């Protein structure tokens, strides 16, 4: 089944073979940013998940980074 990988270090995700890759914010907080307000964080998080959903709905022939 299709899987969207939300992760910070895209080269690693590519190396280990993930096909649908969504670059995230940073290692300790992939779907958040403590330097932003809670509302901004939620928006960032939502944006990343929406990108992941788009990736899941997209036909691909090889590895692709969705950013």
């Amino acid at each position, binding site marked *: *089944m*299709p*899987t*969207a*990988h*939300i*992760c*910070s270090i895209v080269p690693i*995700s590519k*190396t*280990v*073979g*993930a*096909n*649908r890759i969504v670059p*995230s914010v940073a*290692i*300790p*907080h*992939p*779907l*958040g940013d*403590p330097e932003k307000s809670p509302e901004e*964080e*939620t928006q960032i*998080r*939502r944006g*990343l*998940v*929406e990108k*992941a*959903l788009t990736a*899941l*709905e*997209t*036909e*691909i*022939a*090889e*590895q692709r980074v969705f950013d």
Partner: protein
Amino acid sequence: MPGKIRVIHYINQFFGGLGGEEKGSLAPQWFIGPRGPGSLIQQLAPEIEVVGTIVVGDNYMAEHLDEGAAKIIALLETEIARDKGLRPNLVMAGPAFAAGRYGMSCGAVCQSVQETFGIPAVTAMHPDNPALDIYRQALTVVRAEADVMGMRAALEGMVRVGRKLVAGEDIDPQTDGTIPRGLRQNYFAETTGAERAIEMLMRKLRGEEIGTEYPMPVFSRVPPAAPVADMGSATLALVTSGGIVPRGNPDRIESANASKYGEYSLEGLDRLSADSHQSVHGGYDTTYANEDPNRVLPLDVVRDLVREGRIGRLHETYFATVGNATSVKRAEAYGREIAAKLVNVGVQAVILTST
């Protein structure tokens, strides 16, 4: 006899002198002493005594590989019970050269002997023998030529390596003529890593053979799965390698090289919180994840998106493990298991978050 290495030799019907292809279905036969190439083994190494030989037809083994190996183990146990003097220090199989069926049966027998009796086993194959795909990691295999012209050399190799195995010495493919098992093994070098790194650079600058200690691998790829037509009518599951678990880590998932993954309910939860969940991942600063676990497992926004109809359904269980120092092989195994579980309950897509 003191000082003697007692060997039991496993060969097929052809090398056992019992016939050709027409005898391929021969069930395991036991003979006292050496047969066929076994005599040459004794000539090459006076301290080796081939105390017994097992002969089995190639087709017999090809058709019943596991039962055949079990039968051979049983046969060995019977004969050893009858005469303790037969208890071997070492089992030798083949050489199988490039023969696939023979390679498979030699592999199965060696592996069973190692696992059941805890004694070393050695065989010999040509690097193209298809049995190596299956048995390479588990066994010590001497590099042999493609056919019987390489018999003497193969047996010499098996004798040399066999002696080392019995003595408990490490085998080095570079110097012992074995086929690399593809396992990484620690050892203490003569010089420090720093000295070796400088020397290696000097060799590279001089255009000499570099002698890298870790050749860069090529990772295997999985073809991309077909997309979901519309996530608005699909079931999504969440998986994370970021170590987000219910507070208290009920399954005691380790902070590194996790030996398991957890399955946790999301029922009744609109979002994760510092009270309900925590991160047990030992490879990153967990301060931010502990403050707000949604930063690693985005339950809050996923719930919103389900309410808005952008996602059909969220599967009410999520999977978590710790991706810190967890070997790729283990991670692949977890992935396969989790995927199977999700497919079984009708999940159609996964979002995997990593730190």
